[in-house]
């Protein structure tokens, strides 16, 4: 909490103040749900224990990470991005927020109300084998899975 790196980012401060923060996500680990630099997510301060399949925001090594809670390992949480197949272990103390919904194109998608979202979660989280197959297909056919383009000189 006292790490200046995180304080500089202001997310936790904003969460304390407003309860909810809207963030544009970077990275591909939550694809195909959250698209890199395009979709915005709503982060809400965590109050109770999160439920399985909630998307959590936690303090990573040098940035905040949004991944889905897929299980428990002792008193640790197991989280996994939708675009990943190996869960990672995190400490519940590092969790700062959960995502109640996201903005996609011209509408707000409320995760607790959308039946399409629930269907997506039940299919996507049903088995890692199935996910591996689906990811293989998507990676092959989707242009949005191209590498992030960045030209840096010097």
């Amino acid at each position, binding site marked *: 909490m006292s790490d200046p790196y995180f304080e500089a980012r202001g997310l936790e401060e904003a969460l304390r103040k407003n309860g909810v923060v809207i963030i*544009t996500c970077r990275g591909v680990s939550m694809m195909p749900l959250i698209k890199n630099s395009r979709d915005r997510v709503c982060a809400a*301060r965590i109050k109770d224990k999160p439920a399985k399949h909630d998307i959590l925001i936690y303090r990573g090594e040098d940035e905040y990470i949004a991944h889905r809670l897929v299980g428990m390992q002792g008193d640790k949480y197991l989280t996994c991005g939708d675009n990943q197949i190996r869960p990672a272990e995190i400490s519940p103390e590092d969790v700062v927020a959960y995502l109640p919904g996201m*903005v996609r194109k011209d509408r707000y998608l*409320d995760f607790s109300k959308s039946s399409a979202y629930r269907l997506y979660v039940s299919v996507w989280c049903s088995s890692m084998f199935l996910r591996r197959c689906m990811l293989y297909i998507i990676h092959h056919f989707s242009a949005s899975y191209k590498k992030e383009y960045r030209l840096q000189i010097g």
Partner: protein
Amino acid sequence: MKIKENFIMKTIAGENIAMAVGKEARNFPGMIRLNETGCFLWNLLEKGATMETLTEKLLEEYDTTKENAEKDISAFVETLKANGILEDE
């Protein structure tokens, strides 16, 4: 005055949050948190309202003075205008 088409208000985790969607989100990627009175005014402005209508309706619904209501409404409207959320009809 009217709220532009691409601005919406949603209750997210118990908070009333106004935000931009679609192309408008490029100009306004953030959000505005509204309390109950803010929501009340937002709902009226979604349909379109003048300062007079807003004051009138607010006084019908809430226990406050006309002076107070006018002061708060103009501050609220100014905030929305400053963020490009309102358009003239």
